[in-house]
């Protein structure tokens, strides 16, 4: 009995030692912390992001900015408190030099103060929480994505420009749902015949679709990310409405949901800053090599993450590997001097990209592994800025 306790203690001590930071390790190695969601139903987005980071490392010869690089992945489990915990662990235990990733706005809002408070740079590669673009903008926070309501703004502008007189609107009943509709309304001035907010995570939309058909609107706008979107669109198509009422959406049909939707997605309109078929060399290389390595088409979640690593690479090169020079890193990042998957762009004063937005359509495409792919139909916005940069006090 005594012996067992001793063994257990010894094992525990060994385990703890393994966790202790390797004291005095030489800094000629770059450590990037990358937080995303790797478990649960949302883990598919994290997979796209992680695979893209790995491809970026391949393209850079596993050396970001010329330094041997280790990426530490963390799973936020779709929860803000876990995100903060993972970030603290990475900062204190893993001694990371720079942080990147994060899918969700609520996780981002909770985690950014922890990272920037420790004096490290955070490169957000998806979440587009408005406060971080506005009043809470931060010198150490950069985004390689967009602000949440820019995509619905682009959709609103397209619908307005194409003279669609009336619109039926559906979204889940939570903050992002209302933000998306607010973004849409900023540019769409036609008649919104009905605004429906459904329960978060709702399975069945037949009741809503029946009500919608009774109103017989000219067009429908939805925001249903993830599984909700798959359900809504399947049921919309099964109700025979695909050919009757055009369906416009944001963050609903993308390369994470197309494999489940296939033909049901064909004909869907989306607004986005990027598409896998965009004619930009950096993006074409990314998409082609990604398909070759992983056998599926990357989504914008992946493209932004690939872009985030490339942005970090450009900054580390600019400071000649001295990543402790945070000021130098920030100054270099502000130049956005790298081959972005969206083409050349400038950062706004709030460190969010000023970029173009497009109307996309899901079409049959034998060249895509999924058989269905998003294609760019037209450019909606040129050099579009988010609506919040004016509230950001940062000047440079």
């Amino acid at each position, binding site marked *: 009995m005594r012996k067992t306790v001793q063994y257990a203690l010894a094992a525990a001590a060994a385990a703890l030692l393994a966790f202790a930071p390797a004291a005095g390790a030489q800094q000629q190695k770059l450590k990037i912390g990358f937080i995303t969601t790797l478990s649960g139903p949302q883990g598919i987005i994290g997979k796209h992001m992680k695979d893209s980071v790995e491809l970026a490392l391949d393209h850079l010869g596993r050396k970001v900015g010329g330094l041997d690089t280790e990426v530490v992945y963390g799973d936020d489990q779709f929860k803000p408190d876990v995100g903060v915990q993972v970030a603290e662990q990475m900062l204190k235990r893993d001694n990371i030099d720079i942080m990147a990733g994060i899918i969700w706005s609520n996780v981002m809002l909770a985690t950014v103060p922890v990272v920037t408070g420790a004096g490290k740079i955070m490169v957000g590669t998806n979440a587009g929480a408005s406060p971080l673009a506005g009043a809470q903008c931060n010198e150490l926070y950069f985004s390689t994505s967009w602000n949440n309501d820019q995509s619905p703004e682009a959709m609103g502008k397209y619908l307005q420009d194409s003279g669609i007189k009336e619109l039926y609107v559906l979204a889940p009943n939570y903050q992002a749902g209302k933000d998306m509709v607010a973004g849409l309304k900023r540019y769409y001035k036609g008649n919104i015949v009905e605004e429906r907010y459904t329960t978060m995570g709702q399975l069945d939309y037949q009741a809503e679709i029946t009500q919608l058909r009774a109103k017989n609107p000219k067009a429908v706008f939805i925001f249903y990310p*993830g599984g909700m979107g798959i359900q809504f669109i399947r049921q919309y198509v099964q109700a025979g409405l695909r050919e009757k009422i055009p369906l416009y959406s944001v963050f609903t049909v993308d390369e994470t949901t197309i494999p489940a939707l296939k033909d049901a997605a064909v004909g869907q309109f989306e607004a986005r800053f990027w598409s896998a078929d965009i004619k930009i060399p950096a993006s074409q290389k990314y998409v082609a090599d990604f398909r070759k390595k992983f056998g599926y088409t990357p989504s914008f979640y992946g493209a932004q993450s690939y872009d985030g690593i490339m942005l970090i690479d450009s900054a580390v090169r600019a400071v000649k590997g001295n990543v402790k020079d945070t000021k130098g890193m920030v100054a270099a990042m502000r130049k956005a001097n790298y081959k972005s998957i969206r083409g050349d762009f400038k950062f706004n004063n709030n460190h969010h990209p000023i970029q173009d937005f497009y109307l996309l359509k899901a079409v049959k495409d034998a060249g895509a592994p999924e058989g269905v792919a998003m294609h760019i139909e037209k450019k909606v916005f040129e050099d579009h800025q988010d609506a919040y940069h004016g509230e950001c006090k940062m000047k440079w």
Partner: protein
Amino acid sequence: MTFTLIFEQLLNGVQLGVMLFLLAAGLTLVLGIMNVVNLAHGSLYMIGAYLAITAAQWSDSYLVGVAAGLAGTLLVGMLIELVALRALYRRDHLDQVLATFGLILFFNELVAMLWGRAALFASLPAYLQGHLELPGGASYPLYRAVIIAVGLAVAALLWYVVTRTRLGMLIRAGASNRAMVAALGVNIRLLYTVVFGFGAALAGLAGLMAGQIYTVQPGMGELILIQVFVVIVIGGIGSIRGALVGALIVGIVDTLGRAFLKPLLATVLSSAAANTAGPALASMLIYLLMALVLALRPAGLFPARG
């Protein structure tokens, strides 16, 4: 708000109710007869969907998928009973909840490992696509009508088995007094395994039918299971009749609430207020109903043991 619209929404409610019934029937039997709280019932629903889709893709036949989903969940269910639940009968409910919650995590990760985390594509055979014309000019998706028919047929079959067969007699006896049934020389362990297996197959049936309308992904079972628990509380634990009535009530109340509550509120409130209150109230409706049933009839509408 025409009559046709209300009729169509009622059909939608019945369809949702039937889906909930298939899940609730198995769960309530296990709870009533074996006195086991099985949180992993949703996992069987998920397994049914995954097995059916995989078998249908492999064989290119929807019906082979259905058969594989049913047989597969039956076997997986009996296996769970033999391996995990047998050890739990004498434990209290908290232990059962913990253990079956562990099973949820296990099956979600297993499915993610075998099939990946991406949602699965499920095709619908041509003969189940299309619409039924309803009186009044409305049309109803054929597949949803088939779900209603299958669900009601299963309800009739269950009623027949439970009230008219020897197996049903044993099931009812087991629910009333399991010690006495065992004392009379009935192999109660075998009975438990069979009941659990059939409950699992019912969940698998719900899952394989849901595959074409809902999203098939790891964790899909937990989303629907919450409503199933509401059904069981309303219907009364252990009662098939209660499960059917409870499921139809929950399906119809939920559907009508989502469809008509907001327009109704808009007639008395401002449209902004109706926009906020409508969806909030609609999503609470079935829980309010459950609270009401609990207050008036704590044992549910049709308690199994009078």
